[in-house]
């Protein structure tokens, strides 16, 4: 299933998978405090790019 965001087709399943991964990582990071905000943003962007490029 897809939906259009800003004129671009987004795979909803893939976005949901990314979301589950994201919330788990955030929970983990809240416990460990391993990454700061900037590092987390970079980390998330990298993961999105990896997933999206597998399309």
């Amino acid at each position, binding site marked *: 299933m897809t939906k259009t*965001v800003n*004129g671009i087709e*987004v795979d909803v399943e893939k976005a949901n998978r990314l*979301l589950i991964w994201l919330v788990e990582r*955030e929970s983990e990071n809240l416990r*460990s405090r391993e990454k700061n905000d900037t590092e*987390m943003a*970079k980390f998330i962007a990298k993961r999105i790019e990896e*997933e999206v490029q597998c399309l």
Partner: protein
Amino acid sequence: MLIKSVKVYNFRQFKGEQSLDFATDAKNNVTIVMGPNGSGKTALAQAFKWCLYGETDLGDKSVFCKAVELEMLQNTKESCHVQIVLEHKGAPYTIRRTMRVRKEYGGRLKEDPPELSVASKTPDGQTKSIPTPELRIREILPKDLSRYFFFDGERIEKMRGEIGKGKSKEFPAAVRSLLGLDAMKVAIDHLNKVIRRYDESCDPHSDARMHGYARRISELNTRIDQISQRLDKLGAEMETADNRCIELRQRILENKASEELAQQKARLEKLRNDLIKQRDGAVAQMLEIFNKDALDFFAAPWMQDAMKTLKKADKLDKGIPDIHARTLDYLLKRGVCLCGCSLEKDSEAWETIEKIRDFIPPKSIGTLLDNFSDECALRAKNASGFFGQMEHHYGIVRDHAKNYGENEEAIKELVEKLRGREDVGHLQADLSRLEQHLSSLRNERELLIREQGSKETELQRLETERRDLALKDKSNRRIETFKAYAQAMRDSLNGTYSKKEAEIRNDLAKTVDSIFRRIYKGGFSLALDENYNIAINVTDVEGWRGDTEVETSTAQGISVCFAFIAGVIELARRNKGDSGLTSEVYPLVMDAPLSAFDKTRIRAVCEELPCVAGQVIIFIKDTDGDLAEEHLGRKVGRRYTFDKKTEFETLLREGR
């Protein structure tokens, strides 16, 4: 969060180092610390607050042990500290606040600002010092919420008011954090950052116009962020100012009567000054009159005696004024009297002149006596008014003593009445200043909101234009795709967050209500609004309007507080492990929690709390403690007692 132990060193009544290990076992999670009045229960309960937030609710703000202070020599140093070992989200923490003191020459104790340190252990067992200890404590237990977990039974009424209404805006955020919504919240924030990164990473050289869009969009984003931050600050400032205005208005209203009393006191103080002036004037007059007429007055009896004696001696009025014997000698020698008569020796006229010689100087003092008599008459006249005038002025002084005393009594009474009341004039001035400040904040906010709206509209337009342009370029289209995923994730998460938050709030409302009914066992129910404010509604009276909150008794108020705290704790525990939620178990540290309850409710509370809280630590006076222990029964894992040595020194002992 579970508290493993606390160590106090030279803190309040606790001389040297003393420590308590708390029960953390799930089955026996209650620690009872019992002691008589004044033994340091509240001080020890407040040690948690001081360690975590650097403040206490104690009247005497100095936390350094008085017993140690008394023993310290001049120019020597000492310190006090509180150390808490706790576990939060699986990580162990050692939190320590230390204050160094020095006794100066002259005996005054100088306290250095307390230092906070937080250390934790890494998964490989290494101890790591946390560089931002205050921030970490805020994450473990926000101060705004701490008062519900470090619970002071003696200040329950205030707490009830706060739970009902008037909590800060941070409060709902703090509750949401405790209930485990943090991970979603930070995920949304991070996705926004990711979207911004994509905006900034489009290749501006792919099209000349892209560069212009990128620059302007970046400027707009920066300004919108600034506005947003300023609006947040303004909101907090306005809330503080608003609350302060409400408090001032209330205080002005409460002290209205004191305004009249203060005016009355000012009038009496003016009268006091007038009376003092009047008395000083009378005393000055008396001194002047005394200096001038006292001699005449006191000499008057002697003068009268002298006059009487002179009169009897018939020495007065026989001489010829200003005639001296030399004058008569001259007349006799010349042989002619002043009247022209001849003065022949042994004639009758000669004999008469010779007789006069006896009454004039130097042979007679008649003339002197005449002069003396005149002087006496004059002085007697002066002295006649002396007594009257002195009496008049002395009367003023005497009246002053009476009036002054009565006036002082009246002032004293007014001072007594005004004691503890506030100066309405100052309050009014503060209120006016604050209202002006509030008005300028409102103006600033309105301007910022208008600017924010226009900037956001421009941003949306530019983003659409840029996106359309970006899609024409291969490299930028790739970035726009990533951004679209990030946006889709953020929008989906926003929806989930709102839904989950509403679910949790409803769940909390039900949990709090159910705990309240179990504890209070009355015809009331609790309702929770979107800001987590609680209202009590009557459920067993037909026709009662559900939206009308009822005035609560002390026991109801305490039950509400217990129910709210227990509800948050239970939900936090229940949500632990739920995917997407980052919740935790929480302890309850309670100082004198049962003093306002009857036996039935003590039983209900004692049965309820250990089941919902991960850990319960109760500081309690011996009489309530026996009852609590009876109901808590098997749940009690550890017991401590206070052994009060002196007013300044208490020892902690394990067991009863």
